[in-house]
């Protein structure tokens, strides 16, 4: 295997870990409440803008931007839950789709209006440029994003499967009424899920902003990537999102390298349709 190919696969894995992180928020909410957040990509977009603002206003790098983005997007998530999602969950499906879709349009074009349509990028030097390791070239920002993506996705998985709070959330997703009889407050757990999902999504956005252009419409592309990752991995499975994210990262890098950058989106969309067709429950989802 040529060194270039190894380089492509490694970059794919690093990218994939970030995909896993920003998809884990979507899968968490879907698995818990059977609600699709169509505004998910725009949450990521706002996480990216938080990083841009932290840098332009305070001159802070990712270590300042990550906590700020996590807090802001977690707040946004909890507010969306209490003001909107809680109410539309009971309504017809069209209202559910429209509710978060409307939120997506609102956030996207509010950002368009406020920040302008221009692409913004953060300087490379913020995360120490790039370095060579074992003959492979790495960019500091991508390594940081990949490593943190992996760590936080695993942490989220750990919280959901190994802690008391995770069990309570799982109980609410299985049967909200029964959970309520056991002394768990479903609304509090669901709000917590939106908060956790928002924090993970915000962190992902703040990390991506270091190597990806930030624009108001970037959420559209990212949302579709997140849908692909989540449906591939299995709805509700954070571990599934991790595996799927890594696979998609590699597929994307390889197709950009072998077929051409224009077609990498095409290949990912085709993959998406194929997954929905052959295995709608995903790699690790329940049938």
């Amino acid at each position, binding site marked *: 295997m040529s060194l270039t190919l190894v380089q492509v696969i490694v970059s794919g894995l690093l990218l994939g870990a970030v995909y896993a992180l920003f998809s884990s928020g979507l899968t968490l909410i879907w698995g818990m409440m059977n609600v699709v957040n169509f505004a998910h990509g725009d949450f990521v977009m706002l996480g990216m803008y938080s990083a841009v603002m932290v840098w332009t206003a305070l001159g802070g790098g990712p270590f300042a931007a990550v906590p700020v983005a996590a807090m802001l997007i977690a707040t946004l998530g909890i507010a969306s839950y209490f003001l909107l999602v809680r109410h539309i969950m009971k309504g017809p499906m069209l209202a559910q789709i429209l509710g978060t*879709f409307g939120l997506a349009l*609102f956030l996207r074009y509010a950002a368009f209006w406020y920040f302008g349509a221009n692409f913004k990028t953060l300087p490379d030097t913020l995360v120490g440029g790039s370095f060579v390791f074992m003959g492979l070239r790495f960019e500091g920002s991508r390594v940081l994003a990949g490593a943190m993506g992996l760590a936080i996705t695993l942490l989220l998985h750990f919280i959901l499967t190994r802690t008391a709070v995770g069990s309570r959330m799982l109980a609410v997703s299985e049967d909200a009424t029964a959970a309520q009889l056991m002394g768990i407050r479903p609304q509090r757990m669901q709000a917590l899920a939106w908060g956790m999902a928002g924090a993970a999504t915000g962190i992902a956005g703040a990390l991506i902003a270091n190597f990806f252009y930030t624009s108001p419409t970037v959420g559209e592309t990212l949302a579709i990537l997140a849908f692909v990752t989540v449906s591939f991995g299995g709805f509700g499975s954070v571990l599934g999102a991790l595996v799927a994210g890594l696979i998609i990262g590699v597929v994307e890098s390889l197709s950009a390298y072998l077929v051409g950058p224009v077609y990498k989106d095409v290949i990912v*969309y085709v993959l998406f349709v194929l997954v929905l067709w052959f295995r709608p429950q995903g790699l690790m989802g329940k049938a």
Partner: protein
Amino acid sequence: MNRFLIPGAMLVLALVYPLLVQSLPVYERLGALVLLGAIGASAWNIVGGYAGQVSVGHAVFFGFGAYSAVVVYTHLGWPPIAGAPIGMALSVLLAAAIGVPTLRLSGHYFSMATIAVGELVRVLSSTSEFLGGAQGLGGPAIPRTVFDLSFLSATPFYYIFLAVLVLLLWLTWAIERGRMGYYLRAIKDSERAARSLGVSAGKYKLYAYMLSGAFTSLAGSLYLCMFGFVDPESGFGILISVKMVVMAALGGAGQLFGPLVGALILVPLEELSNSLLGGKGAGLTFVVYGAIIVIIARFLPSGLLSLLGRRKVTRAD
């Protein structure tokens, strides 16, 4: 006779509207745009409203119609309107190709699959030289014959759109009253129950999708005839799909006049905010759109016409 009173009055009003605003080109254009929006949203309504399959990728058909019209001009030199039947035929085939795999998916999965297909087609169209790539294609700049449909005012388009809308609504009405309408409503309520009572759910969902696709394509061709230009964003862009869904949902999805009511509110709103706010308005229009959608979903999940519907039900009792 009573139930024809309101539609009849609406039709008469629609027929005389251009005479009332004869000297005001802005309003002539606005009338035509409302009707075009209503055609797109009513076409979506057949599959999205009546059958309850929420497609968020109908721009695929709209773009097919628009591109068919412009391609027959660019590559064959025909008048664009000649592309309309070609676009409709292709859209029926396309609907079958998309619908057979995706209509098996339920609820959100179907919506997401249609978004993915829409984006796929948009990306492909922007890389296709035959379709003019990212720059798009333009129709005839100078009209050659009357068939190029190049008019000094928007009024001829208004009457063409009105005729198409009346035809589409009549067809929808016929479906609604017929066997297929019952099947579609049964599928929407519970596909499993409908299947267990012997409804071929897959077949009727596909018929609805194909019919819906054909008329959405016609809306696209008509759009091209009026505006004379299409690019991947204005043909296949996700906002085109969203507008159809939102107009129908605002008025009332699954109701005959729901999409028309939605178009009557949203199209003037969009034109108004675009003209008041100039270049910056484009962004703000969709902020308003987003806010309206959120408010409908939160407070009026069945659309504006559901307010009337509730009263009607109590009167029937």
